[in-house]
């Protein structure tokens, strides 16, 4: 597979981005390395079966999508508590340069694939969250608007020993002048998130993507857990024409845990490529992967879940469930839940289903004189309940519910 080289990209572009932000030398070097890696890096793996490529990333025209020097966003950040640091990535470099340098790229190799390398070389926005030892913070929110043709974001979360933090991130398309001037064309949003969870730390990271339907989204979020740490993810995808989302946790510490909750709702010709992966690499680790999605019109979903249990992962528990509900005859859903087990001291299971709204349930509601459209909508809302229940933060749950309702109208 040959990846596309973007002609308008040069070392010069990257230096300008770094210069404008007054970045330290190490970050410039990292960016330049990432740029150089583009020559050989491959696009993310996509499942292929005889006669069917589940997502066609190669069709993306990066030459047209990527406009590195005109990136614009408007992002509101609330820290929730004074004890935690929540800063725009660039601003944080001045004061927390050492912490950032020590952790940047430790979870997610910038040269992991073509799209991560591109993102690290060109990012201009993002957030740095630092939670000192023993600090407990709720309600860190990062609400971003994308106001340019392309936007690359890089977020780093460092949670020290026995700290706890809940972070909510959302991205949508801005309606300001800048956004309008870039309007009409296709857009590209790239979002990389690294989470470093120290011993006994607890991180919940929720993300809500609701970009307009001219957008293409690539998102890779990865966490690493120390002993007894927990990293929980909530990944909600509603927007974009094409979304490729990867949520990954490496359970490196004994007794650590991860939960990955996913929701998506596709209408029109939206395409969601949703991936949830967990590597069990220590003893007594637990993972729970739950994804629920709804497809209407000619929308299409692709799901891959991987539970990888390493040789040293004694006494592992690992569960995975994926359910897709089809509202339209022309929707398509592909799913591949995978188990890779190298340690026999494991309890693992996975399941996946695809189906439509239950005819009997519908009949029951209609017999109670609820019209069929309302009845169907009630059942779709109900379908999302098991994942909504996993969302501990009211604000986030309300947002997701609201978006579900909006799509049902």
């Amino acid at each position: 597979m040959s990846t596309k080289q973007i002609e308008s990209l040069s070392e010069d572009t990257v230096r300008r981005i770094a210069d404008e932000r007054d970045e330290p030398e190490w970050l410039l070097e990292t960016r330049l390395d990432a740029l150089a890696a583009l020559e050989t890096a491959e696009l993310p793996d996509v499942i292929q079966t005889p006669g069917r490529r589940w997502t066609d990333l190669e069709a993306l025209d990066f030459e047209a999508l990527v406009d590195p020097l005109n990136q614009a966003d408007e992002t509101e950040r609330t820290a929730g508590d004074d004890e935690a640091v929540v800063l725009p990535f660039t601003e944080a470099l001045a004061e927390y340069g050492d912490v950032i340098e020590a952790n940047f790229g430790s979870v997610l190799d910038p040269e992991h694939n073509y799209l991560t390398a591109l993102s690290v070389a060109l990012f201009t926005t993002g957030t740095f969250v630092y939670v000192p030892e023993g600090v407990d913070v709720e309600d860190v929110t990062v609400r971003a608007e994308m106001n340019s043709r392309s936007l690359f974001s890089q977020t780093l979360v460092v949670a020290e020993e026995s700290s706890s933090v809940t972070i909510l991130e959302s991205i949508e398309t801005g309606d300001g002048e800048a956004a309008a001037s870039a309007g009409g064309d296709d857009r590209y949003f790239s979002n990389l998130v690294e989470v470093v969870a120290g011993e006994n730390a607890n991180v919940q990271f929720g993300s809500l993507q609701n970009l307009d339907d001219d957008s293409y989204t690539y998102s890779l979020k990865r966490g690493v857990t120390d002993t007894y740490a927990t990293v929980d993810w909530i990944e909600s995808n509603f927007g974009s024409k094409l979304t490729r989302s990867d949520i990954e946790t490496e359970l490196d510490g004994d007794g650590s845990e991860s939960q990955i909750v996913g929701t998506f709702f596709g209408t029109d010709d939206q395409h969601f490529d949703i991936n949830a992966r967990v590597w069990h690499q220590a003893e007594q680790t637990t993972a729970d992967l739950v994804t629920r999605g709804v497809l209407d019109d000619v929308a299409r979903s692709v799901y891959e879940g991987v539970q990888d249990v390493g040789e040293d992962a004694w006494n592992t528990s690992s569960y995975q469930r994926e359910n897709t509900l089809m509202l339209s005859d022309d929707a398509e859903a592909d799913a591949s839940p995978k188990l890779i087990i190298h340690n026999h001291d494991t309890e693992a299971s996975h399941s996946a289903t695809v189906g439509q709204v239950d005819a009997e349930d519908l009949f029951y509601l209609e017999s109670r004189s609820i019209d069929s459209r309302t009845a169907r909508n009630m059942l779709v809302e109900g379908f999302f309940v098991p994942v909504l229940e996993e969302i501990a933060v009211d604000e986030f749950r309300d947002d997701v519910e609201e978006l579900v309702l909006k799509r049902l109208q």
Partner: protein
Amino acid sequence: MSSQQDDLKETDTEARFEFKKEEKSAFQSEKGLTEETVRVISEDKDEPEWMLERRLRALEQFQEMPMPTDWPGQPDLSEVDINEIVPYIRPDIDKRGGADSWEDLPEEIQDTFDKLGIPEAEKNALSGVGAQYESEIVYQNMQERWEEKGVIFCDMDKAVREHEEIVREHFMTKCVPPSDNKFAALHGAIWSGGSFVYVPENTTVEMPIQAYFRMNSEGMGQFEHTLIIAEEGSEVHYIEGCSAPKYSAFNLHSGGVEVFVGEDAHVQYSTVQNWSKNTYNLNTKRAIAEKGGRMEWISGSMGSKATMLYPSTILKGRGASDNHITIAFAGEGQDIDTGAKVYHNAPDTKSTVESKSIAKDGGRTNYRGLVHIADGAENSSTAVECDALMFDNESTSDTMPYMEINESKVDVAHEATVGKIGDEDIFYLQSRGLDDDDAKQMIVSGFIEPITEELPIEYAVELNRLVELEMEGSLG
């Protein structure tokens, strides 16, 4: 327990599979694969021109296609060098197309199959038995009453000559074309032997038909072709067993199975595969089921160094159905990558897959399966269940299902579990006076029981015996 079961149990299965005979063959082709080899095979078999042409076309496709290397987690095939394989060995027998009576066979071949219990199985009420030794069928018999009804069971070479029309229409055309995959192409070029089964309309063959394949020579490739045509409303059960003694060089088995399930017909295809642990088992098996047709695949994979086998069914007609039952057992040095493929191409089609796998002593099992529901295949349903059992930490158990759903009015479910043998279970059994080995054996038997319950009795006994054999004394 019936006496039949006792008989089978008493046979020493290990002795049956381990012995090997001096090689003694009438004709052996050169190692490797060239156009010349293919021509020689075809000529030696006196084949019609069209078959030679098909072989040559397949050879061309084989040479063009790359080795499959990019499947996630696939078995290592780097050792498979087709130039090291002797594709065709004709055993030293007088009569082509198989002897009609057991006594007509050369003694050493008789002896081989006696040890495998083939005539015994026939006595035990199978309606026909074909045995393939190296590349050709050496013995075949069909009970007279089936012949009278028009049922045909003969070796494939003979079918090419005597049932040319029907073979020409069905042989690697609609079901498994050589272009399907590299090993199907290889098979198309150098296939030899195998069985042809034809069951006329509304005929039920009440007893199973059995074939046994065996490789006795080192560096041998076996490429038998099985073609089963079950006409409208007919019913047949075909049992295939495979084995080879152990040699140091590797063997290659690349068979092809094509099954045509007519309207409302019912075909059951059972395999016990116990190839020696230097055999690469790279098979292509496929069935096409017409309206209301029912296909059942039952496979037990015990042997081979590496197996890549995914029996598939294309549910072509409305209301067609498919059941898969697979048991895979991987011990030391074995990589059993197996599963099922089902294409729902018509409304009201149903499929179920039940897979049980056991990995121990560093073996690897993988369930790799694909369920595809085409747009318009309304009211289709599929249920896939995979359970895996692991014995130790050197072993690997993977599950890689793929589901492609292009239709909304469907019911799709996939479930998988992986578990270990519980120390408590073993402790309990030991407290009842069983030793460790017996306790584990018993747990494994219990694990696969839901599947063995559904098997024909001879087959279940055989499978249990093989599992016991795999388990014997090998546990710490």
